[in-house]
């Protein structure tokens, strides 16, 4: 019986903003097991980022709750790490690559050598062990996002949450980074919650794909991806099953956009 790591229950978020009252999230509920890689997709503007911030404890939901490892999330938990889409703004430009990766470790009770060990290991894992003395802005966009991933890896979280992390990098780099995420998952057994608007990416990466409706958001479908754990950019994407799944998800998203989907459990 796989152990439940993350549980989202009846989550609702209403914004009081300059243009009035906006219900971003209607009612979202799903769970994620330890060691799973779950992708969340939805039409653009469906409140994915809002959901993520609620899970990460950066935003307080209007109703409902998030539990991580049995504990209710009210503020950013220690055993969670985030990778943001805006790598340029989430890395601190005044710190070197090493400084950035090391920063969150400084308040953990670790010896200096343990810390160095963790940083070295994380940088090696993302293939940046040679660039630790550079500054983030001296690196290309893909490289910068690797630094952000290394920072999250070194933090040794129970769960890694990634918010459209590859939306702003070019296609080739993106493929490399996707494989990096797969590697982290398969080799290190990391639990990853991956938010994206790219349907192919969600199917390629995920063991499960959670499809969100348009705003106010609810879970339209929770789809298991029955592809083999060893995935490859060329062969996996060429599989007929891959095409079926992505077509299925695509249709769901189109329905979501048109607002055709009707909540079954409402």
């Amino acid at each position, binding site marked *: 019986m796989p152990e439940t790591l993350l549980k989202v229950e009846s989550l609702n978020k209403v*914004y*009081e*903003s*300059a*243009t*009035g*009252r*906006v*219900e*971003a999230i209607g009612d979202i509920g799903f769970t994620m097991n330890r060691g799973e890689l779950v992708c969340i997709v939805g039409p653009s*503007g*469906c*409140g994915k980022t809002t959901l993520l911030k609620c899970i990460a404890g950066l935003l307080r939901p209007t109703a409902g709750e998030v539990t991580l490892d049995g504990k209710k999330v009210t503020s950013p938990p220690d055993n969670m790490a985030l990778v943001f889409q805006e790598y340029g703004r989430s890395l601190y430009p005044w710190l070197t690559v090493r400084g950035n990766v090391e920063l969150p470790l400084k308040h953990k009770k670790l010896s200096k050598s343990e810390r160095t060990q963790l940083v070295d290991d994380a940088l090696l894992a993302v293939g940046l062990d040679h660039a630790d003395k550079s500054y983030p802005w001296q690196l290309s966009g893909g490289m910068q996002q690797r630094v952000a991933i290394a920072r999250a890896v070194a933090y040794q979280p129970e769960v890694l949450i990634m918010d459209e992390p590859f939306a702003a990098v070019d296609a080739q780099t993106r493929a490399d980074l996707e494989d990096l995420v797969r590697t982290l998952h398969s080799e290190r057994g990391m639990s990853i919650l991956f938010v994206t608007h790219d349907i192919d990416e969600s199917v390629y990466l995920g063991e499960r794909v959670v499809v969100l409706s*348009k*705003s*106010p958001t609810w879970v339209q479908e929770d789809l298991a991806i029955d592809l083999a754990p060893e995935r490859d950019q060329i062969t996996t994407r060429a599989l007929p099953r891959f095409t079926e799944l992505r077509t299925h998800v695509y249709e769901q998203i189109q329905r979501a956009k048109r607002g055709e989907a009707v909540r079954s459990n409402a």
Partner: protein
Amino acid sequence: MTTATPTTASTGHRRRRNLGTLRRAVLGTIGVVGFLAAWQLLSTLRIINPEQLPSATDTFAQLGALLRDLEFWRNIGRTMTAWAIGLAIATLVGTVLGTVVGMLPFVRRLTHTMVEFLRPIPSVAFIPLVILMLGLQMPAALVIIVYASFWQVFVQVLYGVADIDTVARDTARSFGLTRASQLRNLVLPTALPYLMTGVRLAAAVALILAVTAEMTIGNPGLGRQLTLASGIGNYTTVYAIVIVTGLLGLIINIGFRAIERRTLSWHQSVRGDVAS
């Protein structure tokens, strides 16, 4: 966000914003009142000799008396006239020289040392010299005001001209725009927000120097009235004039910030997101 249900909350929202403004106004008033009360207590409880620190009420009474005196208004007028003329000259000269020097790289390199040396010299150091050349009247004060505020405009315009987008410049060149046309359509629009920042800084500096000049040169105005009052130990008048100069500075700051914001907002829509 998306087309999500905008409810009737807009009135509630307005109320919230009004609440924010109200909060600011209330807290700000508390701050000012608290300051005045502390001042009053320091003086009335004789923690500080009231001969030297007259109470807030005495000071404001004196201020009221001054405000009924036409000569006081004339002094305000004199100070502000020197300020305005000085600022106008500094802006004009600063803009013209800044644009010319900024657009001609070799002139920029040639003048760099001179600028770096002349800019930090406090203009008050020239007071003896300007009295020698121009006497004890407004022209002498103007030199001091212009020298100090000129650099603010000049340097900002230099930054502005340097900030011209390379793509925009190449585009202008590739379409064969004339120098005059480049100046009008590319250089000035890019440099405008910088110019406004420069003018705002210059306006504040010009007021400082206008008052300082009156204090040291002795041309008529608020500064001279302050020195005269201080010279006979009339501290209520001294404090009243300090308050008036502060208010003048406040008006100048608020006014020029508003102008700057206006030019900036117009500008941002043209060149898009500006990270600063």
